[in-house]
């Protein structure tokens, strides 16, 4: 029992350290003006979030976050920076003061809201007494897969996953359309320029 209690304390310490790191990286992202550095910090941020998910027993989510957030997202951002610019310009402070007030007021309201949430890890929280027992106790036999996240994802919430696939397809089509038209128009422009140059000569 003693060992178990110490395990909980160590978990809590790691939890606090990771969350504090997250806030530090978040503030760094806010302050840094070089977009390449911001991209690297985003990668670190995603990796910290993935580590936190492992600690909170969400291993599938951690895998996805590490692959997609720390991997794919950083590559996409690097590609965008390569096509645009690396330096961010500094803005007037007047507009920022209003934003700061809005953010502080919203944050205070949300902090006030958290006071009603059941404590972290509480076994009697509504999240653990309603649907969770149904999935954790019956899904391994009902579906035949030990990993409950997979069985919920693919069966109980299968339509949701289909919707996710539709969103990814739509986003892929959107990206190709947005970037593709520019390329076609540029080619047309250069062809017109070449025609004009030919006519002039």
């Amino acid at each position, binding site marked *: 029992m003693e060992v178990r209690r110490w395990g909980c304390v160590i978990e809590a310490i790691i939890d606090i350290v990771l969350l504090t790191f*997250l806030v530090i990286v978040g503030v760094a992202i*806010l302050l840094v003006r070089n977009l390449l550095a911001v991209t690297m910090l985003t990668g670190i941020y995603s990796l910290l979030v993935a580590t936190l998910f492992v600690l909170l027993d969400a291993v599938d989510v951690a895998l996805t976050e590490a692959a997609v957030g720390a991997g794919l997202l950083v590559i996409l951002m690097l590609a965008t920076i390569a*096509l645009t610019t690396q330096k961010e*310009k500094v803005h007037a402070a007047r507009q920022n003061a209003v934003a700061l007030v809005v953010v502080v007021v919203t944050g205070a309201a949300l902090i006030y809201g958290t006071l009603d949430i059941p404590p972290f890890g509480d076994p009697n929280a509504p999240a653990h007494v309603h649907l969770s027992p149904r999935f954790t106790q019956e*899904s391994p036999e009902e579906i035949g897969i030990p990993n*409950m996240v997979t069985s919920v994802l693919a069966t109980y919430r299968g339509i949701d996953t289909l919707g996710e696939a539709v969103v*990814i397809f739509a986003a892929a089509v959107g990206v190709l359309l947005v970037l593709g038209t520019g390329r076609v128009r540029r080619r047309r422009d250069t062809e017109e320029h070449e025609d004009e140059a030919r006519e002039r000569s």
Partner: protein
Amino acid sequence: MEWLGLYNYWVVVVLMMIGFYIVIAQGNLIKKLVGLNIFQTSVFIFFISLAHLEGGTAPIAIEGVTAYSNPLPHVLILTAIVVGVALTAMGLALVVRVQEAYGSIEEDEIHKQDDLH
């Protein structure tokens, strides 16, 4: 240790507000998307924190274990992460197009060019 029970949620609020501030106060479009990303990641942490069960284990069936984290928020966030990246990719593609059309990705410079025409 009582105050520790809400520490996760407070950090979630702080991260969410950092993301919110970046979105509304900073003019660079790439930075705005990063802010949006921080905002949505804070929601992910909120859901996963709610799913955590003291003394529970990861929701993979093991002989003799009865206490598991709630798998449902995990599934929701799994979907949300992938959808979030799809949307960020779409946003970054639009940023590239804005750069092509205006020669800048700073919000105020784009507004200035719009006012001229």
